[in-house]
């Protein structure tokens, strides 16, 4: 960044629960430092005051689920020099991407009294399916330390330290005893992207895969082992149909078990 002018930062919301934006507000001590280094130009969750674009850094939360959002994301991209997607909705389509496996028109006809008023797409898709994205930060919600790291890296022109290996490495660095090997608890850690600091296994629970697929995830091998731990095909479908259901590796795995489950019926 050039000297003198503070970079302008914007935070955008698409289909989401706002939890990832809250991670930014949750930064507390660091938030003051962030506000000191960047001009928070557009962040409706925090302030109605809006400064016009273009923006140096845009943080985008949420997925694309409506025709109007599909247009709006193009505008956000045009107004942003550096665009970072934050959270499972923005990077993978979020929990609302469960619609991608079903017939949306059928839902609408059941749920709404006047379905003709509803304008929605058949799918919930990640931001990168619509515009080019400069950096993706996975997690549901994202980890606030990682968010500060991404903003710090942006401010100082360096690569963020957000490693894409398994959660297992974080467990081992913390000294956790493996819940799957020692307790027989099914855990998605071996196929899940690091970043949370292995929260669930640290409290004796299996990983739920909130951070989405890691690099080179071998989901089918893990599923076979879960089968030996007594997890059935239908449960394997559910396991991979969480907040990252539409992330490619998890989507393919759940579809494989769905086919298997249909054959077994």
């Amino acid at each position: 960044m050039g000297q003198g002018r503070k970079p302008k930062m914007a935070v955008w919301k698409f289909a989401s629960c706002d939890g990832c934006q809250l991670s930014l507000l949750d930064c507390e001590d660091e938030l003051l430092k962030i506000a000191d280094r960047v001009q928070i130009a557009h962040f409706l969750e925090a302030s109605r005051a809006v400064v016009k674009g273009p923006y140096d850094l845009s943080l985008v939360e949420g997925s694309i689920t409506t025709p109007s959002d599909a247009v709006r994301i193009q505008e956000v991209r045009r107004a942003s020099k550096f665009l970072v997607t934050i959270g499972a909705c923005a990077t993978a389509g979020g929990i609302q991407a469960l619609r991608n496996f079903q017939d949306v028109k059928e839902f609408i006809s059941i749920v709404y009294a006047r379905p003709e008023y509803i304008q929605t797409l058949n799918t919930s898709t990640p931001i990168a399916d619509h515009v080019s994205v400069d950096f993706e930060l996975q997690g549901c919600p994202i980890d606030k330390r990682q968010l500060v790291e991404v903003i710090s890296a942006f401010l100082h022109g360096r690569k963020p330290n957000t490693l894409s290996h398994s959660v297992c490495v974080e467990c081992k660095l913390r000294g956790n005893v493996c819940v799957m090997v020692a307790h027989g608890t099914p855990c998605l850690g071996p196929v899940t992207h690091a970043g949370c600091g292995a929260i669930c296994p640290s409290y004796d629970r299996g990983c739920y895969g909130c951070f989405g697929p890691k690099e080179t995830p071998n989901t089918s091998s893990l599923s076979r082992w879960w089968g030996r731990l007594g997890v059935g095909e239908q449960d394997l479908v559910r396991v991979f149909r969480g907040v990252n259901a539409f992330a490619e590796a998890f989507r393919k795995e759940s579809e494989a078990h769905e086919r298997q489950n249909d054959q077994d019926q």
Partner: protein
Amino acid sequence: MPILDRNSLDLLFDALKRRGFNLVGPTLHDGAIVYDALASTADLPVGWTDEQEGGRYRVKKRADEALFGYAVGPRSWKKFLFQPVQRLWQARREGEGFRIIPEEEKPPKWAFIGVRSCELHAIAIQDKVFISGPAPDSSYPTQRKDLFIIAVNCGQAGGTCFCVSMNTGPKATAGYDLVLTEVLEPARLAIGADRHYFVVEVGTDRGAEVLRDVPHTEATEQENAAAERVVEKTASQMGRTLDTTDIKNLLYRNFEHPRWDEVATRCLTCANCTMVCPTCFCSTVEDVTDLTGEHAERWRKWDSCFTMDFSYIHGGTVRSSVKSRYRQWMTHKLATWIDQFGTSGCVGCGRCITWCPVGIDITEEVRAIRETEK
């Protein structure tokens, strides 16, 4: 040889504490036997044992009150000597440049209690890498410096143990200050009571000096023989075997082998095997800045040849396939390590087998390759 009775072991702990040592050793935590701080022998997994198989570990109660009646657990001693996460230095911006603030590191004066023979070999291997290798480490020698080791000859083998194949156990032969063999003798019919004692062998003058502080007697011939039998029995119980005949050339001849593709369908590249391995020594460094850009830090963390980042060079990752990463790890451990450091990188502790979430077995992988050459 000297012998200590069960209660004198606490006096041995006290003798070490009086000399300023921090005691660490096996203790029960979260359903596993791990190495952590010990206050007294009551912190040891008294009367506990473990069951180990590929991808499976369980603790269970023993019928007796043995203190060391189990095999090795998920944490190795490398956690203490080569820390998982460590700050190397900090830097503060000053004018146009910056000032480095080095880390002050005091020798921690560890006393390791209950180190097994395979682990002594692993420590010797890491010594070679971090102290006498071509690139001595900045921290390891400090952590290692005053280390006092009380080894234990294994009283039973685990389901994934294969130290006999690797010629690294179960009897400790070097690298300890004192080594204990735990003997439990049930009361004979009608006479006497249960006996629980430790036959001690002294490895160093320092070990002898500490032992002088603790009441002990000389072992009888029968007691020495009982200790010998303990180790012999363990050696006969190995859960796994690995044929190491010409293993270096075997693997060099088989860089291209269908088994690597097969294991790649199972390998999760999760890196657990390398994290639990007592000899794996790879690390990465991370440079971080704070938001102001006035302060920077360099951190070192354990790394693994199973991550994509590990072999990333400008333009991409060299070992992008799962096959190439598993092959790299196993071939390094069992073959190229010999060229690099003069010994195998594997000590037969079996951790990589037990703690692989899908139970991949290094001994089985070697066997599969060897069998196709027959």
